[in-house]
């Protein structure tokens, strides 16, 4: 355990809903996203993308395109020497799948890049793309994962047999005994739909190579430092000469925590043609070629006693990973990571799971808020929902019966995740109370308006603080992930934090300033946070996976503590007091018990830098107020509960949401308003996943809804107000007692909807959804299946 000071009990800045420092520029329309940046002499890129899902390319004729008077350059696989990036985290039976920058002799999904055209403007570049002639020799399309795994199936990559590039198996406890002793076994096949994070800002890259062999890259990314390092690795460019800037980024949700081919192609072109180049993804490209997510087939089996005691769980998770394994997470992130989250809040210890990552001729699936877990917990919860209905026990009572108790932490879950803390009973109590759950459950489902009311509940445990240890407990043994921050006190006593985190909606400029102000004892207004620019930050992995509050907060606490201790040492010398007797409060240093003896931080900073007669001997105490610290936290797991109330129209299958309640325990909250923003935002996206969103590929691998016209997402009319509440159990293991909070609802709220639909349909029998999204068609099919049974 660390020896740095805890935040518990602190009140000046932590736990205060400060207005975000990010907001004024955004509100005035002056924040600069990648597309808002224009460099003198800049030219633009448009991509020719495959129109076939699986085909040999027999001929690419560039003659007409090159003859266009405004054509500056056309780049194909041959030009970039067949370059690729490879996911190669060595573990289990992982076979590396290289993701090429350009398709070479074969295309493997619709949207794969074949050529890049450079022209003075995007309009012209698009015209030139249309002049390129490509001849395809179509191959059979691999569409369905279970077909793909059959012997003799067509292969997406010749070297990957059975199209399975990763598989693992995990056993703990005595699963056979659990199933022998069960009073009820529920077996279900669950299909979770393929969706897209669909951030409002698409991807975009500007690359600018200059004659001193420096390269500046602006990218709409969540991970500026890893992008810098990997441009250096894969393009063999000196890393010290690369500067990556993630300017204002319009949402990421995990999708922009990958390194995409376009982020390598643009820098390569800029160096080659010695001009700044720009590419802004249009929405159709985004739907086709930005990371997709969530598609799995899961065969789940639940062993349960009559009284609701869960004895064990079996799961076979098959991820539909698309045509490549996206760098750096790889397609294993869906099935393998998902399985690690199967136990959730339950104390059972018998488990068996298998994970298969399978290649198909679609765009890759990879990280998106709640990745992997969304599918696995939906499978578990639909099985538990069915058990509850068959056993005639309220699902909330099954939760209570199987919860890990607050005095059992630290608790090692069935999948060996080390839960640090929590009070699940209290969280569920609060959620049930706020939503009037018991009262509503006792009322008839059929309403006067002819619709059926359904009440659904869910409970989640969320792995947060994605450092090396949580990554390992979530299925990534080989990944090292940690961060750093520099805290500097300026000569006038103000403070600059240089962070390895990078907020793109999370408000980390605000929350990291709150942590620094609290630790140092200075005013919030006197702290500025620099992030998103590798020239002014501090090495870090970026913001994703509910990690920034905990890891960023920890780095800032550690560095700010160093600076504070240094300042106090100098203050003790200047004020002729004992350092232990000094306190700092809002920029003023006092001697305890003698409120008259005080100096401002500003005066002390000035003395430190400029007054060699008053400060201590510089051989002993260097005249700088700066520290850079690293943090790779222990595992910490947040938890929470969602309750939803729906009205379901049995004539049409339409679902209206009438109430949503969310209760969450993310430990010590830095800024409650921002935490609630994350809670509600996750619920919004979770509703999309639960009820609306599905990327519809046909059997030829064509995406039929590659625009916002056809891809259905929640709008303001989809949702009611969302009631939030907090239970705070500080993490006993992390600096500050923080736990993460970003992904929460995506591990939970869709399960509450599945549960609510089953509750509404309970008037017909035991009918439980088996796929997401739960659209009107599925609801009508469920009702139809009940009628058939009669």
């Amino acid at each position, binding site marked *: 355990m660390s020896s740095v000071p805890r935040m518990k009990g602190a009140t000046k800045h932590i736990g205060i*809903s400060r*207005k*975000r420092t*990010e*907001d*004024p520029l*955004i*509100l*005035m*329309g*002056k*924040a*600069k*996203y990648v*597309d*808002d940046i*224009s460099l003198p002499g800049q030219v633009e890129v448009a991509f020719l993308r495959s129109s076939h899902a699986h085909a040999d390319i027999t001929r690419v004729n560039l003659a007409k395109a090159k003859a266009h008077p405004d054509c500056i350059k056309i780049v194909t696989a041959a030009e970039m020497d067949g370059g690729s990036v490879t996911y190669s985290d060595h573990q289990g039976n992982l076979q590396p799948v290289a993701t090429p920058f350009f398709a070479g002799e074969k295309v493997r999904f619709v949207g794969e890049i074949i050529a890049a055209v450079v022209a003075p403007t995007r309009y012209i570049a698009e015209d030139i793309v249309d002049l390129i002639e490509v001849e395809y020799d179509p191959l059979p399309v691999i569409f369905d994962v279970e077909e793909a795994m059959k012997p003799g199936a067509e292969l997406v990559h010749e070297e990957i047999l059975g199209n399975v590039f990763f598989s693992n198996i995990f056993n703990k406890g005595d699963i056979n005994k659990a199933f022998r002793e069960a009073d009820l076994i529920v077996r279900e096949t669950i299909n979770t739909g393929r969706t897209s*994070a*669909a*951030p*409002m*800002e*698409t991807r975009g890259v500007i690359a600018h190579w200059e004659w001193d062999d420096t390269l500046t890259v602006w990218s709409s990314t969540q991970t500026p430092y890893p992008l810098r390092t990997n441009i250096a690795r894969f393009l063999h460019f000196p890393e010290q000469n690369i500067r990556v800037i993630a300017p*204002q*980024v*319009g*949402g*990421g*949700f995990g999708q922009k925590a990958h390194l995409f081919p376009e982020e390598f192609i643009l820098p390569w072109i800029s160096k080659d043609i010695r001009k700044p180049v720009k590419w802004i993804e*249009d*929405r*159709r490209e985004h739907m086709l070629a930005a990371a997709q997510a969530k598609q799995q087939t899961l065969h789940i089996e639940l062993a349960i006693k009559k009284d609701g005691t869960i004895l064990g769980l079996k799961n076979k998770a098959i991820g539909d990973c698309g045509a490549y394994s996206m760098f750096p997470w790889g397609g294993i992130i869906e099935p393998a990571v998902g399985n690690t989250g199967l136990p959730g809040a339950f104390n059972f210890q018998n488990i068996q799971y298998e994970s298969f990552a399978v290649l198909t001729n679609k765009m890759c699936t990879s990280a998106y808020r709640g990745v992997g877990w969304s599918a696995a917990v939906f499978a578990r919860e639909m099985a538990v929902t069915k058990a509850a209905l068959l056993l005639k026990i309220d699902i909330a009572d099954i939760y209570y019966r199987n919860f890990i108790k607050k005095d059992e932490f630290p608790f090692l879950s069935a999948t060996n995740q080390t839960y640090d803390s929590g009070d699940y009973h209290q969280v569920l109590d609060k959620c049930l109370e706020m939503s009037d759950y018991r009262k509503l459950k006792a009322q008839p489902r059929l309403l006067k308006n002819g619709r059926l009311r359904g009440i659904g509940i869910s409970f989640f445990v969320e792995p947060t603080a994605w450092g090396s240890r949580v990554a390992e407990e979530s299925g990534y043994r080989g990944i090292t992930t940690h961060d750093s921050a520099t805290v500097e006190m300026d000569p006038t006593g103000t403070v600059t934090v240089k962070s390895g985190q990078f907020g*793109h*909606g*999370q*408000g980390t400029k605000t929350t990291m300033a709150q942590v620094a102000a609290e630790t140092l004892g200075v005013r919030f207004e006197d702290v500025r946070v620099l992030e998103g620019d590798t020239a002014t930050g501090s090495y870090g992995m970026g913001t994703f996976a509910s990690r920034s509050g905990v890891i960023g907060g920890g780095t800032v606490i550690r560095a700010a503590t160093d600076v504070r201790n240094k300042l106090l040492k100098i203050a003790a010398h200047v004020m002729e007091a004992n350092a232990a007797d000094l306190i700092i409060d809002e920029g003023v240093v006092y001697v305890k018990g003698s409120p008259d003896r005080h100096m401002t931080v500003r005066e002390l900073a000035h003395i430190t830098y400029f007054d060699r007669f008053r400060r201590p001997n510089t051989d002993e105490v260097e005249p700088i107020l700066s520290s850079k610290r690293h943090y790779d936290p222990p595992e910490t797991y947040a938890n929470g509960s969602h309750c939803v109330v729906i009205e379901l129209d049995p004539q049409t299958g339409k679902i209206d949401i009438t109430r949503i309640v969310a209760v969450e325990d993310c430990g010590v909250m830095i800024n409650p*308003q*921002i935490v*609630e*923003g994350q809670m*509600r*935002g*996750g*619920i*919004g*996206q979770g509703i999309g996943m639960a009820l609306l969103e599905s990327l519809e590929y046909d059997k030829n691998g064509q995406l039929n809804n590659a*625009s*916002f*016209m056809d891809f259905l*997402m*929640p*709008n*303001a*009319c989809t*949702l009611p*107000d*969302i009631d939030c509440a907090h239970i705070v159990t500080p993490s006993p293991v992390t600096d500050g007692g923080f736990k993460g909070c970003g992904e929460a609802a995506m591990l939970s709220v869709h399960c509450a909807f599945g549960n609510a639909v089953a509750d509404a349909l309970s008037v017909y029998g035991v009918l439980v959804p088996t796929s997401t999204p739960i659209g009107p068609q599925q609801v009508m099919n469920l009702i139809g299946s009940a009628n058939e049974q009669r």
Partner: protein
Amino acid sequence: MSITVSLQVNGRNVSETLEPQTLLVDFLRNHLRLTGTHVGCDTSQCGACVVHVDGLAVKSCTLLAAQAHGTQVTTIEGLETEGRLHPVQEAFRSEHGLQCGFCTPGMIMSAVALLRRNPTPTEAQVREGLEGNICRCTGYHNIVKAILTASTHMPAQSAQASRS
């Protein structure tokens, strides 16, 4: 063939020679460098590009610049006055009605137009009024709250203040 388009943008007269197919949003962003108006979907669903043309909220990705000839256009940059935020902008800040901020300018322009039509909307009317604006970060809750807050704080003349 080029055409000349003359209009008033944020109270300033502008006259530019353009290719006739230039979209209003490209004219605002690329010619006038008013980059607060965003493009999110290209197909008129997301509303990140909403501006006011003669006081009406329109999606500038779906209008040719030529169609705005002779009109008065207000963009997000025209909403604050001398560094003072418009009450709707203020309310978005105090209610945390934005996260990544990409949809925010279009959302605010829609909200200002909505409040001009109906200065005291109900929650349901606010939600209905935002149907053409997609936000992926907030779950809409705080956006709706911000607009309701603004409606109670907005003096009657502010509702008219958008220069149109």
